[in-house]
């Protein structure tokens, strides 16, 4: 995936001021930056949720213009949104299979989805006693787990994770990092946005730093360390 010159404004705020990025299969790219740097906005564009004001996205050398997230999903681009994007009044299994329901003809195969949901959650070591619970009734961390399980379940080509571990407890964070490594091994390209910088060094191959709507640096993981990244994020000494 090759992204060039992405721009996006909201009213008077220029959220993105021309961002370029390359992404290779089987690698994990860490995307970091101060709050409001534009990370979420940028990844939403990759996932087709926003349409950019300018810029191009190429996939396998072919330029593509998304018309929406459904299309991006068709290309195998999956995303965990910072706001999770769950349907509160629908149960856990239903949310996991949202938009990709198992069906017999036009009918939902509820039993199969409940079984599949158990399986998905088990793989990610997520403990949710009852997959028939409504998502509104779950705790913050449980909700986040479901969003992650959903995005990883259907063999994506590109997986974008926008602060996926922010509400997770220790063991669950480990499970997510393990998941990322598993997916990388399968050839999935992963974009990980996080403020837990130490996690970056455990899964990422490259780190891109954003600042006020631009990409200011990109480092291979071997060439950098935590202090360097922090300095890059804050922009100290570069002005």
């Amino acid at each position, binding site marked *: 995936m090759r992204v060039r010159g992405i721009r996006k404004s909201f009213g008077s705020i220029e959220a993105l001021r021309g961002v370029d990025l390359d992404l290779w299969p089987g690698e994990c790219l860490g995307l970091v930056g101060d709050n409001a740097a534009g990370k979420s906005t940028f990844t939403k564009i990759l996932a087709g949720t926003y349409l950019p004001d300018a810029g191009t996205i190429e996939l396998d050398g072919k330029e593509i213009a998304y018309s*929406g997230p459904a299309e991006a*999903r*068709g290309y195998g681009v999956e995303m965990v949104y910072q706001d999770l994007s769950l*349907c*509160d*009044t629908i149960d856990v299994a239903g949310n996991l299979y*949202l938009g*990709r*329901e198992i*069906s017999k003809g036009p009918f939902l195969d509820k039993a199969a989805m409940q079984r599949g949901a158990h399986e998905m959650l088990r793989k990610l070591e997520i403990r949710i006693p009852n997959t028939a619970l409504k998502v509104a009734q779950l705790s913050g961390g449980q909700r986040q787990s479901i969003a992650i399980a959903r995005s990883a379940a259907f063999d994506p080509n590109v997986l974008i994770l926008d602060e996926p571990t922010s509400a997770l407890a220790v063991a669950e964070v480990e499970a997510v990092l393990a998941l990322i490594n598993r997916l990388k091994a399968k050839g999935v390209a992963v974009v990980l946005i996080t403020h837990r910088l130490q996690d970056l060094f455990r899964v990422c191959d490259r780190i891109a730093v954003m600042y006020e709507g631009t990409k200011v640096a990109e480092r291979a993981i071997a060439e950098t360390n935590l202090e360097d990244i922090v300095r890059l994020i804050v922009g100290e000494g570069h002005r």
Partner: protein
Amino acid sequence: MTLYTERQSGSRLRDFFESHAHVLSIAVFLIACCALFTSINDVFLSPGNLLNLLRQAAPTLIVAVAMTFVITTGGIDLSVGSIIALVNASAALLLRAGWDWPVVSVLMLMLGAVIGLFQGYFVAYQRIPAFIVTLAGLSAIRGIALVLTGGFSILIPPGLFLSIGRGTLFGIPSPALMGLAVALIGFIVLNFTVYGRHVCAVGANAEAARRVGIPARRVVASVYVWSGVAAALAALVVAARLGSGSSNAAVGTELDVIAAVVLGGTSLMGGRGTIVGTVMGALTISVISNGLILSKIDAFYTQIVTGAIILIAIWVNTRIFDQVGSVRRKS
């Protein structure tokens, strides 16, 4: 101190009560109303009157089932009464012009679908609030009926068409059968199909639905098509029952229909709908108006009593829900 025990998984029955509290309480209320009217007047429970009741409830019920879908997406359709008027008038005009009744019926359902599609397009694709689109529809569509009929009520020539409204099958009035069939279909579609799931998802979180690739706009547009078709079907029943078509039909029906849906426990915020509740909501409204007349309440008081009963029904509903549900969840 460091005693690690897992939570007991509590009573599933309690979960069941909680998640079906709305439906259960309207059921209780409906039964209470029936008991009350039975004790006042013994005609109420007579088979004749019960069939009557079903027949009268049918048009409201048919539209309310479709409206349940609309409201579950977080929308509303205020134009259903006007669609009934337009279809009912058009059907009468065509029948009088000598068209065959099956042709007319099919055409009328298509007319309902087209109107629904038109409104659904503006709601879903132009993102205009459903309240406004269908309010405009409420005015304009009845206006068209007015122009078509010139303000006259149009006699439908006797014929098979009238049995849509007046016929019986195995002793059950055909409108009642149609109402029940529509309710059954609605129940299955909303609860057991992929489409039904998408309707709920769009109502719960339209943006999330869009993000997971559900064709959110198409789903939203579609529910207005169903409410248009259902209104058209109800219009055929009304026309066949009255034996005439008029632009004056079904004035204010939208409010009855919405009341039935909300009484049944479907949330106006979207994301949660129940057809069983809607059926009982529609029956409750019919039972009240039927029961009041049987109880010989002075007609001047029926509006007051009807309003009071609706409020009390919902109030009891909320109370029971609060009791069965998490007690004092919020302070």
